[in-house]
């Protein structure tokens, strides 16, 4: 029995109804406003890592003063007089379903229908320091308790207000569906009670939370709160916003990565084109503002620009691979025991969302306002203020809902460009990257190699080593605020930061004896960033493939071999679940096979079983302007996230993770040649399409285990990629070592790099169907 067990058991004897209490706030406000601390209000942690360089960029006093306010770091639940409840979430919804799960938490604790809860996204709030970063699948993990505390407090206050009004003990009141009822048929809606329940002064109050066995909302599947807006076209993304005079703006970009403008020979001519209002040279190219994006595309194509070299001049896949090999850390002395060893290569991949990089900016002499979907809005706000030379308080950054992220929205490349253009021309702009820009100059998941060695003796594994070598991943968003962002950007700090990130994110679910995993990085010439699940898909794929090879050498079944080495019950449970539901080991035709893999991260565990068809008639099936290739015909995923707030949302995330894993293993990569990426279209970059989608899919969300939500948004990518790779290896009889497996074949005709964007087609009527 552990100490914790003992304590809770003794506690249960002594005080059978006692529950842990949490501190929240009732804020002074005309209507009921409750709050809870997202983070302890302290600037101490930030102050520890200050470096002199920071002060050159941002006025520290602005940040530190805000962070030191007693009510700093609060998240706030507002009960409106119309009976609705508002909450501004300091996170970014980009499709992962956190507005829905957050509404569920509030509905649960407050006892109101979900449709009464309105979730918006908070503007950038620098005083939140580390706590406005949407990443690391961390949202629900970090907000699960504070949001419920604020909501529970609101419920308590509403009941108390009714009790006072009716002169009745609280114990005789009930609250259901947003209505408080009492003896004698009395009833009042929470909207009507809100003013009475409001605080005259701000005070700290303690509250207990609903026990898990009383949950009626948390843990039950719920459709997305924005589903209706999405299917009717009413959901607004950045480019859909109507900001006065924010006219379409695009940038003519260089033919090689990060090239710079040398000169423009026809500025006046392009300025005179119909609909064009402004043409201006900026840091990243030549910006054009016009009446429509159609006019912008034509103007971008018309510009005659000579370019200076970029940051990856002359480089290609082959030359970067040589750099990586040179940067690989040694594997150490050869073992005295038998071992398996392999080097895996992972090519550049794009983390483009379907919504391209975009932002709206209105910069005036003394202030700036920005709209963009940003997962690190505090860093964006601070960087924008620094770029414009404005005080932090003069910059407002509105966080909009994003059309996908996959890591892309951790950065704010479009927002920085938009403020630069707006400041230069003194007009509001709505800036959008063309798809070709997004693919060629946008951020990428860096190319990497992963060397793995497993030492064994008989059926015992003695040691596991992995040396992951990668083109530098830009982690310049830090932990979501400027202090660690700058730490990550400093030449020395960066190595420590990325290595720390790597170690913190990697786990070893198998009992493989002494194990070590190290990261080394090289070459900062590329625009990189974290892509969904960051290092894990490549690292896990390499590991799982070598586990399969070792199992084969030992004559063991891949599922049972893995199971025998697993460290914990949760991992065994998900692996057993997919093996059983997926009918592991069933006999399959030659050229087809099953694959199975496991991944643990974010306090969650996942297992994936797939079946793949690599027979020639399948691989060669006709697909116009796309890649057919091996088809994943079936997938079974089991996931244990500790406690799934919304199982339907978790299911959706796992489905998306699977689609990513299929693409990473089989079809999607960028080809680097002569300092630029060849891909410029969704028909060049082969993300999973319907013709690659498994016809059969089952996602099993495991019952609650830890009772606390772990991360889910990125969790399933690693095991999916690994399972597909393992299945491919078993179906073809040869272990794949280069990813995606089709990288060696260029399946499209590259578009020109000058002009940087393709012409808009005119033959649309020929393709109406």
């Amino acid at each position, binding site marked *: 029995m552990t100490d914790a067990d003992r304590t809770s058991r003794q506690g249960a004897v002594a005080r059978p109804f006692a529950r842990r209490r949490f501190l929240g706030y009732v804020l002074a406000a005309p209507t009921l406003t409750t709050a809870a601390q997202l983070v302890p209000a302290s600037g101490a942690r930030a102050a520890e890592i200050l470096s002199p360089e920071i002060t050159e960029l941002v006025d520290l006093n602005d940040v530190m003063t805000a962070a030191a306010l007693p009510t700093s770091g609060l998240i706030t639940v507002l009960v409106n007089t119309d009976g609705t409840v508002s909450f501004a979430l300091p996170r970014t919804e980009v499709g992962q379903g956190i507005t829905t799960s957050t509404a569920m938490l509030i509905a649960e604790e407050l006892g109101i229908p979900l449709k009464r809860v309105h979730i918006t996204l908070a503007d950038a709030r620098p005083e939140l320091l580390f706590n406005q970063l949407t990443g690391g699948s961390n949202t629900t993990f970090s907000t699960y308790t504070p949001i419920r505390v604020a909501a529970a407090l609101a419920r308590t206050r509403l009941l108390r207000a009714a009790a006072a009004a009716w002169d009745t003990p609280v114990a005789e009141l009930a609250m259901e569906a947003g209505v408080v009822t009492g003896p004698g048929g009395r009833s009042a809606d929470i909207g009507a009670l809100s003013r009475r329940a409001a605080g005259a002064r701000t005070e700290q109050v303690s509250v207990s939370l609903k026990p898990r066995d009383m949950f009626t909302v948390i843990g039950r599947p719920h459709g997305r709160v924005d589903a209706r807006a999405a299917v009717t076209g009413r959901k607004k993304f950045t480019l859909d916003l109507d900001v006065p005079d924010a006219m379409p703006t695009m940038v003519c970009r260089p033919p090689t990565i990060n090239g710079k403008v040398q000169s423009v020979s026809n500025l006046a001519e392009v300025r005179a084109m119909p609909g064009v209002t402004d043409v201006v040279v900026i840091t990243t190219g030549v910006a054009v503002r016009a009446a429509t994006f159609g006019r912008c595309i034509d103007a971008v194509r018309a510009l005659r620009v000579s370019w200076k070299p970029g940051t990856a001049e002359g480089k290609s896949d082959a030359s970067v691979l040589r750099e990586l090999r040179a940067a690989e850390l040694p594997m150490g002395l050869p073992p005295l025991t038998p071992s398996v060893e392999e080097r895996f290569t992972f090519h550049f991949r794009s983390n483009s969302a379907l919504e391209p990089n975009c932002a709206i900016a209105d910069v005036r002499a003394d202030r700036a306002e920005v709209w963009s979907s940003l997962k690190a809005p505090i860093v964006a706000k601070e960087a924008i203020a620094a770029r414009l030379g404005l005080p932090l308080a003069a910059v407002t950054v509105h966080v909009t809902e994003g059309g996908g992220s996959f890591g892309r929205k951790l950065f704010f490349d479009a927002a920085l460009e938009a403020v630069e253009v707006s400041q230069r021309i003194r007009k509001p702009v709505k800036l959008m990257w063309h798809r070709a820009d997004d693919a060629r100059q946008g951020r990428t998941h860096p190319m990497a190699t992963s060397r793995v060695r497993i030492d064994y003796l008989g059926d015992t594994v003695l040691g596991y080593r992995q040396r992951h070598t990668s083109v530098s991943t830009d982690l310049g968003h830090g932990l979501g605020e400027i202090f660690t962002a700058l730490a990550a950007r400093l030449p020395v700090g960066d190595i420590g930061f990325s290595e720390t990130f790597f170690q913190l994110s990697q786990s070893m679910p198998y009992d493989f004896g002494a194990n070590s995993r190290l990261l080394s990085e090289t070459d900062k010439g590329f625009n990189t960033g974290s892509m969904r699940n960051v290092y894990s898909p490549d690292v896990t794929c390499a590991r799982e493939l070598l586990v399969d090879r070792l199992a084969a050498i030992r004559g063991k079944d891949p599922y049972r071999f893995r199971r025998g080495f697993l460290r914990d019950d949760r991992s065994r449970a998900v692996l057993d679940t997919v093996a059983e539901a997926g009918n592991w080991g069933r006999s399959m035709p030659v050229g087809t096979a099953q694959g199975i893999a496991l991944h643990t991260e974010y306090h969650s565990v996942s297992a994936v079983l797939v079946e793949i068809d690599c027979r020639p008639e399948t691989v060669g099936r006709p697909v116009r302007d796309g890649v057919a290739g091996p088809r994943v015909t079936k997938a079974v995923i089991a996931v244990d996230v500790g406690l799934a707030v919304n199982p339907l949302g978790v299911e*959706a995330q796992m489905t998306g993770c699977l689609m990513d894993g299929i693409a990473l293993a089989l079809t999607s990569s960028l080809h680097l040649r002569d300092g630029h990426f060849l891909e410029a279209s969704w028909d060049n970059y082969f993300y999973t399409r319907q013709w690659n989608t498994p016809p059969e899919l089952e996602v099993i969300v495991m019952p609650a285990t830890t009772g606390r939500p772990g991360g889910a948004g990125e969790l399933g990518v690693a095991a999916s990629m690994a399972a597909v790779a393992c299945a491919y290896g078993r179906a073809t009889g040869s272990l794949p070592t280069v990813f995606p497996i089709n990288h060696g074949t260029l399946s499209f005709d590259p578009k020109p790099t000058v002009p940087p964007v393709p012409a808009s087609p005119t033959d649309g009527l020929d*393709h109406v169907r």
Partner: protein
Amino acid sequence: MPVHTFRLNGEQVTVDAPDDERLLWVLRDILGVTGPKYGCGINVCKACTSHLNGRAANPCAIPVKDLRPSDEVTTIEGLPATVGAELHPMQQAWLDQDVAQCGYCQPGQIMAAVALVRRVAEEGRTITEADLDGIRNICRCGTYPRIREAIRAGAAHLGPEQ
């Protein structure tokens, strides 16, 4: 500036625009109809899929001068009215399956689905796996399996006359 007229979601509209302005920008930047999304601008990703006289069309590739005054353009905003209901059965199927994630591609997916079901019905057959495999619309969130389910369900609701 040339004047162009066509029918949009049941109403006659007239716009001043260059002949070669693509319909996508006429809709989004001039008329403020933002359901059709930009995802590539070269008729590849299909995020802007709308209907032209009831068939799937991609406004990013249609110069506005190609439209005749009687041509009926339907965007996601006008889809429910084509069946005289608050939601088209395909939109309802999308809700029932909770298809959307970020939602950016979904207007185009739904418009493509409605046109596909209509075309298949005209050919006197039901939706096949090959029909679903043939849908080119990108969903970067990877909602493809639910899209397939929703199309099957939506097709069942629409019945053979569609």
